[in-house]
């Protein structure tokens, strides 16, 4: 194994390798996968001089700790958190030089859920259908990190392009999800659609990379039963028989038989990656 690598000291609750995913294979039943907070993933890569598509780590709530084998530049974005190198504080949202053999600790999120950690050169695991992303629905890509695992890094691309605007995200006190109705809004009564836009929903603790589940008032259906399976887009608000909308995130199934009442455009999805369980959710009809 090359020296350009890191070993996992503390895996955290769920830490996965992510890039921009493997779009274009949904017709084979392959989910898109990829970083949930995509703007944060792209930013972390830019900060260390990588192409935005390089593979990085996505942590969940509790961060992770790694020992690097060679001196490496890293950057942490997404959910703000304490960052230390061999116990000494280091900046969040900026390039950090980690000496060979040092332990980089990405601490628990102070708010938000997922921090994105990029390494100069990117993570160099095997590509599956053109992507290194871990897809937790179908098991494609590398397994989530476990303690003692060793992951290779690629050769650095060169110095970072320079100053970058690093927004420091505040806590998501309310998750606002703008959506366009359809394709199956006709499966719901007017009262059901009114419930969607006026009901008090919260993020369910059962949420994951497949979908952000909600708890709240159930949407009343105009028709019962299931649809013949149909294609499901990223951002779909699928409503299973319990009447509670599920927002499909990057590891969502490519087809499904429950009606989709509306679709949240991709550009509004990043905050959903950072909304902790219990966060109030408001669905905002765009037209």
């Amino acid at each position: 194994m090359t020296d350009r690598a890191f070993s996992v000291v503390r895996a955290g609750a769920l830490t996965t390798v992510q890039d921009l995913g493997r779009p274009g294979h949904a017709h084979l039943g392959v989910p898109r996968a990829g970083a949930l907070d995509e703007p944060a993933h792209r930013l972390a890569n830019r900060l260390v001089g990588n192409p935005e598509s390089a593979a990085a780590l996505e942590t969940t709530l509790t961060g992770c700790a790694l020992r690097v084998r060679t001196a490496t530049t890293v950057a942490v974005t997404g959910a703000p958190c304490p960052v230390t190198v061999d116990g000494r504080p280091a900046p969040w949202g900026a390039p950090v030089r980690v000496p060979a053999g040092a332990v980089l600790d990405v601490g628990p999120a102070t708010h938000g859920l997922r921090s994105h950690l990029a390494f100069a050169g990117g993570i160099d695991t095997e590509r599956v259908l053109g992507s290194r992303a871990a897809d937790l629905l179908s098991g494609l890509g590398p397994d989530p990190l476990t303690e003692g695992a060793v992951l290779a890094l690629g050769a650095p691309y060169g110095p970072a392009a320079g100053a970058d605007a690093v927004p420091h995200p505040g806590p998501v006190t309310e998750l606002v999800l703008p959506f366009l109705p359809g394709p199956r809004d006709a499966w719901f009564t007017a009262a059901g659609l009114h419930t969607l836009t006026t009901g008090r929903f919260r993020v369910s603790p059962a949420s994951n990379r497949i979908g952000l589940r909600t708890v709240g008032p159930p949407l009343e259906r105009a028709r019962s039963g299931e649809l013949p399976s149909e294609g499901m887009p990223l951002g779909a608000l699928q409503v299973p028989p319990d009447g509670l909308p599920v927002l499909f995130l990057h590891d969502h199934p490519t087809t499904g038989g429950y009606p989709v009442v509306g679709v949240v455009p991709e550009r509004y999805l990043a905050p959903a990656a950072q909304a902790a369980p219990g966060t109030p959710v408001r669905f905002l009809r765009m037209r």
Partner: protein
Amino acid sequence: MRPLPVGEHGLLIELDSAEEVEALHAELLRRAADGALPPLREIVPAARTVLLDGLADPRGLLAELAAWDIPPLTAGDRPAVEIPVRYDGPDLADVAALWDCTADEVVRRHSATEFRVAFCGFAPGFGYLTGLPEPLHVPRRDTPRTKVPVGSVALAGPYTGVYPRSSPGGWQLIGTTDTVLWDPRREPAALLAPGTRVRFVPQETA
């Protein structure tokens, strides 16, 4: 053909039959291969719909689509994929009872059918194969199995499927194949893509 909106960049085209879905899907692939489709990310056929996603201008494509002359499906020039099967599934007797025939007759009818991959889903490389006539459609099992072995050939509703890997499942298992349905290191990774024709060839059970 009924178009339904899907967010800012998608369209869901609903059709009246599986045959119309396959014909539209084939036409979309033809046009994509000819460079005559605007750039898009996904074309996902399903039971009665085709999802188009990642379009810059869904309305523009919709206006074009209405004017297309879509030829009916042909057998195509590529030979059917042959999948050798040992018809030894634990639900073969139940399927024989549902079909009101012997187990040998299930094997004969199933292997005499030409199937087509209508769409994929559930797991990478899992194809939903149509071809069995309506009287041979069977319900799912009342209690799904927690573990269906890889390579299981199974029936549910109008579909036949082959499990590309071990997973939970509620379909009626009639046989087993050693054919590898899904291998991401292979090109193509999925043996069964939408539109592929398929025949099952009986093998002696061990």
